[in-house]
């Protein structure tokens, strides 16, 4: 009797961990119910065992069978970066450009956000930091025209990689999602098979809406992977578990700050451990 009580409390604690890490109710309930079933079957006595079991389950969900991005699979390899407003798209491109260029690739950036005030200037600063060229138009220009020029420039310069920034847009704005599709078509017309990867940037502080974001962007343009930013704060970004479970889109990168070096490959072990750390 005593043990059951402890177990119930433990399950409540674990439920709190999952909910407060933004995993969402569906995923949380699913995970907790699975644990309950295991507990009912007996054998597990140590709370630590239960916690480890849950961690293993989370890692299993996150460890999708996904190929890493192979930047040498095409030349130029085109990556288009999308997401809602203010999540960290431009910053992530800057960091990624730096890493890729350090690794010996010739990188070109396309300033596909022609809407937000000084978006191209922001990307230019990152371009300078990373030491790579930025193709831009004036504010208010057609983003598809920027994509066209950036693709042309990448080919002409014999670049290995083109990273295309796009304006932040809420997934609910139909015309803006259509605009993304148009940009994608233009890239494909200029460089067959492009974009070779569409990266969705998600802000770790986002709650349940991130699942809807992923769903809608995936539906509109097809996602290759996710970059989860702002993990240097106290938010856990647990919604990516729900996204992995539902959409099978892998997390590729995590952002852990505002500096050039603050981008890391996603590590499921570290991520899951951090979920259980009290902040």
């Amino acid at each position, binding site marked *: 009797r005593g043990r059951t009580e402890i177990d119930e409390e433990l399950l409540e604690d674990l439920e709190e961990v999952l909910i407060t890490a933004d995993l969402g109710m569906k995923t949380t309930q699913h995970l907790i119910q699975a644990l309950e079933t295991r507990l009912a079957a007996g054998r597990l006595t140590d709370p630590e065992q239960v916690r480890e079991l849950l961690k293993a389950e989370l890692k299993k969900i996150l460890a999708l069978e996904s190929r890493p991005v192979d930047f040498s699979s095409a030349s130029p390899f085109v990556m288009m970066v999308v997401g809602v407003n*203010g999540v960290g798209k431009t910053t992530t491109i800057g960091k990624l450009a730096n890493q890729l260029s350090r690794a010996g690739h010739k990188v070109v950036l396309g300033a596909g956000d022609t809407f937000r005030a000084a978006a191209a*200037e922001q990307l230019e600063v990152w371009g300078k930091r990373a030491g790579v060229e930025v193709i831009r138009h004036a504010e208010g220009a057609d983003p598809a025209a920027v994509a066209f020029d950036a693709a042309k420039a990448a080919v002409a310069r014999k670049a290995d990689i083109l990273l295309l920034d796009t304006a932040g847009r809420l997934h609910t704005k139909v015309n803006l999602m259509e605009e993304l599709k148009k940009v994608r078509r233009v890239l494909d017309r200029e460089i067959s098979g492009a974009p070779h990867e569409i990266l969705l940037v998600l802000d770790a502080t986002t709650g*349940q*809406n991130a699942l809807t974001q992923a769903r809608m962007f995936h539906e509109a343009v097809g996602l290759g992977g996710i970059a989860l930013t*702002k993990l240097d704060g106290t938010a856990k970004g647990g919604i990516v578990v729900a996204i992995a479970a539902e959409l099978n889109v892998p997390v590729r990168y995590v952002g852990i700050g505002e500096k050039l070096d603050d981008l890391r490959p996603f590590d499921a072990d570290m991520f899951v451990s951090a979920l259980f750390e009290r902040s």
Partner: protein
Amino acid sequence: MFDNLSDKLDAVFKKLRGHGRLTEKQIKETMREIRLVLLEADVNFRVVRDFVATVSDRAVGQDVLKSLTPAQQVIKIVREELARLMGDGEDNSLKLAAKPPVSLMLCGLQGAGKTTSCGKLALKLRRDKRNPLLVPADVYRPAAIEQLKTLGRQLGIEVFDSTINDKPVDICSRARRYAELNGFDTIIFDTAGRLHIDTELMGELKGIVQAVAPQEILFVADAMTGQDAVTVAASFNEQLPLTGVILTKMDGDARGGAALSIRAVTGKPVKLVGMGEKLDALEVFHADRMAQRILGM
């Protein structure tokens, strides 16, 4: 599966038909459904727990089941309590009555919408016949100053001259003197995005507050924020004398439970709501509408 709270509660009451007062089982089931709806809307775990306790008390105290539509009766209680928690009926206007120049400072996490909201505020104030000066005090984010200058150009509103080599506190002090000398009656300070746990940058904000004593210190929060909203808002509120909140990106489909969490932990009113990227997309906050939105109604 049922889509909204109303249907869910109807089902609960149908299943557990009773007379007079709610049975314990009905209360439990009802509260379970309410809890789920609120958590799915990103209301913070602990805020939900307290809230459910309050609603539970009220529901027990009333003869909910004597009404012909018990589910609607409970929802009415939930909506009223939500709206009350969010400051229904309280004064959430900007405090601009002091001797000019009156200062407003915006602060918050990275990418929340501060700079855009500064532009929106400037436009709103000019429409209210004020003469605002925009002040870029973000020297860290690439092209942040240029961003505000662009907004100023679009609006025809002056933006104080600063560079990334200046210190934010100095920029703000100088801008204040400039406003005094040049007849601006309102100053809007745009600060860099920062984490609540960044002691150094939070210290910088304290320095600005000390230097210009803003009448309004507005915490800018993204409506899509999840469970962490309470941690961040509570921390900003502890370190700075916040006077209110601007909730941005409400033009999307996020339920916006963070609004409730932030209000609950800071006690500071949500004053304005960002409804889009355009500079006229700023609205006053309505607690009751927010309550309905959180409930998905």
